[in-house]
């Protein structure tokens, strides 16, 4: 273990906590050389992930996703709108990602976090390019009425891998989504039928009785990795992200097609082998996430 | 142009290099000491370029990249022109066209004591020397040479100051005297002070001379030596016709 470095020698004399604060990079590298991370994970292992559907009762679809301590709350609210003339039989999705000051000491009240608009842009890119949602399913009356889905994601605790958790919560919220029943009134306007009215007033036929769930065709999942020297660390915490700055986010859909390969700069260059390793790690992770999602959905159906 | 770089650094000397180029191989010259100037850094076993410019070598062992910028990054022992922005109890604050204001201690003058602190108004132009330039700290200046003599340092009164690129100011200071100053000096008499931070001060008896000299120097920014000479001579001919 003798490392020919000033800080390496100190590590045996200093308290672990002091060493971690004074030489964060060396602290991590000492762990990495033993193929373990400070939180006892192997390099390629993601943190424990939990998913709870229906976390917001008033929303039409919602989910709470936790990856380690990174927590995201996603909720969908459906509203009826007039579709645009270019695509008369398509609805639309509006995604917004919020980072309130509660989530991290970096975010200051009154000043929006720099990362928030970027992540919300990435989310809408990933969801639209994966083709997970067929926008035609959101149509009610061609040219007259269609659904607009407002997806709001709140970051409650930002501890690294924000995009992964946000995407997971978004996907889960869509699979939990229950589209409200609407009918046409006498003026030809769309009105929402409240659930309890269902039995009493049946004179107006609902427009969308069969279409209460969206069919999600190919669901995208993602995994963020850190590249540091020759190591690849899956699913970093905020501390790891701040010390080793090269992040790669790979998004794959359920049929293993690439929906995103996002590497915004960073001091480490990604060579072909690293690209392939990241993709392989993501493939494994997609399987895990798919199982977690399936479990959460089947858990809901039993209730 | 540089199709086959071989192992010797001589291949790159006097050539234009861009950031990232590896110009000296240290593993082949283990017993030698080399000195690096601006624009170069050591990257493991090689010397790598940080700024685009011409690689220069001076015997026996100095390498640097010659660049030209509009902004000045202070460097120890540079002589520069600074402008007083503020005066504090211990320091004058001087603008030197760099990232941070520089400090000129009130005692950094020949025979400077607490009793004879010079008074400079805000806006005074000073010819000074950089004595400390550490990253992360404000640079420190001095109005004396290394032996504590005033030499020619101090306030520049009257005259006219203009700004140029750092490359042009270095050219004006080069020896032998650069063609434009040479040509002007033969016909006109004037005083000039050039700071390596891209500031030039000119003074002469008549304002018209100051204007001619200043314009000639500013024009020579993008001219070669021969062109400079022609340009300066043309200017001088014109004034002789007029007067």
């Amino acid at each position: 273990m003798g490392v020919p470095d000033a800080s390496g020698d100190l590590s045996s004399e200093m308290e672990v906590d002091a060493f971690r604060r004074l030489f964060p990079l060396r602290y991590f590298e000492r762990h990495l050389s033993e193929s373990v991370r400070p939180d006892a994970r192997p390099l390629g292992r993601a943190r424990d992930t939990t998913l709870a559907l229906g976390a917001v009762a008033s929303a039409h679809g919602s989910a709470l996703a936790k990856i380690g301590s990174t927590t995201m709350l996603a909720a969908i609210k459906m509203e009826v709108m007039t579709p645009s003339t270019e695509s008369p039989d398509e609805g639309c999705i509006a995604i917004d990602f919020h980072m309130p000051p509660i989530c991290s000491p970096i975010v200051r009240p009154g000043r929006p976090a720099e990362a928030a608009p970027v992540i919300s842009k990435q989310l809408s890119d990933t969801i639209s390019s994966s083709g997970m949602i067929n926008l035609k399913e959101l149509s009610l009356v061609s040219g007259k009425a269609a659904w607009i889905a407002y997806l709001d994601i709140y970051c409650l605790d930002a501890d690294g891998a924000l995009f992964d958790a946000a995407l997971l919560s978004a996907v889960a919220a869509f699979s939990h989504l229950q589209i409200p029943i609407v009918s046409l009134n006498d003026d030809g306007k769309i009105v929402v039928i409240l659930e309890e009215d269902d039995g009493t007033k049946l004179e107006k036929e609902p427009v969308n009785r069969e279409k209460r769930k969206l069919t999600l065709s190919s669901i995208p999942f993602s995994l963020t990795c850190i590249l540091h020297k020759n190591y690849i660390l899956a699913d970093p915490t905020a501390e790891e992200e701040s010390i080793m700055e090269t992040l790669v986010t790979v998004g794959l859909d359920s049929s293993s097609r690439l929906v995103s390969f996002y590497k915004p700069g960073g001091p480490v260059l990604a060579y072909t082998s690293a690209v392939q390793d990241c993709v392989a790690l993501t493939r494994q992770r997609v399987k895990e996430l798919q199982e977690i999602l399936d479990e959460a959905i089947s858990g809901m159906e039993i209730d | 142009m540089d199709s086959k770089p071989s192992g010797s650094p001589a291949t790159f000397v006097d050539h234009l290099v861009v950031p990232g180029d590896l110009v000296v191989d240290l593993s082949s010259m283990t017993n030698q000491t080399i000195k690096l100037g601006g624009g170069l850094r050591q990257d493991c076993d090689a010397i790598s370029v940080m700024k685009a410019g011409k690689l220069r070598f001076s015997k026996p062992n100095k390498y640097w990249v010659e660049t030209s910028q509009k902004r000045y990054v202070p460097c120890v022992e540079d002589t520069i022109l600074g402008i007083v922005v503020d005066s504090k109890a211990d320091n004058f604050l001087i603008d030197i066209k760099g990232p941070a204001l520089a400090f000129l201690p009130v005692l950094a003058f020949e025979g400077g004591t607490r009793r004879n602190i010079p008074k400079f108004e805000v806006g005074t132009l000073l010819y000074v020397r950089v004595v400390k330039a550490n990253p992360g700290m404000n640079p420190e200046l001095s109005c004396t040479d290394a032996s504590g003599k005033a030499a020619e340092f101090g306030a520049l009164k009257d005259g006219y100051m203009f700004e140029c690129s750092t490359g042009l100011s270095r050219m004006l200071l080069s020896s032998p005297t650069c063609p434009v100053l040479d040509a002007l000096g033969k016909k006109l008499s004037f005083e000039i002070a050039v700071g390596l931070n891209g500031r030039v001060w000119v003074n002469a008896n008549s304002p018209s001379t100051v204007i001619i000299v200043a314009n000639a120097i500013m024009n020579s920014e993008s001219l070669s030596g021969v062109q400079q000479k022609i340009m300066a001579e043309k200017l001088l001919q014109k004034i002789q016709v007029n007067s």
Partner: protein
Amino acid sequence: MEIDRDHGRSPSQLRPLSCSRNVLHRAHGSASWSQGETKVLAAVYGPKAGTKKNENPEKACIEVIWKPKTGQIGKLEREYEMILKRTLQSICILTLNPNTTTSIIVQVVNDDGALLVCAINAACAALVDAGIPMKHLAVAICCCLAESGYVILDPTKLEELKMRGFAYLVFPNSVLSVLPEGSSLVEGEPMENGIITSVTHGVMSVEEYLKCLERGRAASAKLSDFLRRSLQSQLSNDSSKAA
């Protein structure tokens, strides 16, 4: 199956490039870069004293301001700002000027496809012009996947509409080196094959992405030659007089 492109361009042919430096008088460094009809102007101010809150004062801070051709900046521009900032941070040597901020202002002059990569190239040339210390240069290239699976490079706005996938890739420039060939290989690949930045839109298979990488690398070698030539031709104008 071949793809018809405007002006009989082949799939991996880039549009005519042009780059000029020092186009703005007041900025400390500036460059305009155009690829066909797409044109971007970049200006660099700095290094200026101090860093913003939440930035590490032990390093230089880089700030990118994106100015669209018309209108206000939205989420797309914020994402571009972030990508540019992270990309430029990774090519600059930040430890040399700690506690300073360098601002890069990117003004879109005309957008005819491949806007982000054009902006990255412009910003990189402007940083060279300002003399900001850099590890190496960066060259950016936009690869597109047509419906048929064909990779085409450097699309125009019209072509962008027909594509199903995009990969914006940034690579280091190919450097000249005194080291013997093969000594600078990383994991069996030359340094300039490493990806600095990659952003993709649309769905593609992993094989298709790797194909884009390969085409992008081939094109980046050409781009990097162009960048070196254009930097050198302008430098030689500046420094011929300094000889």
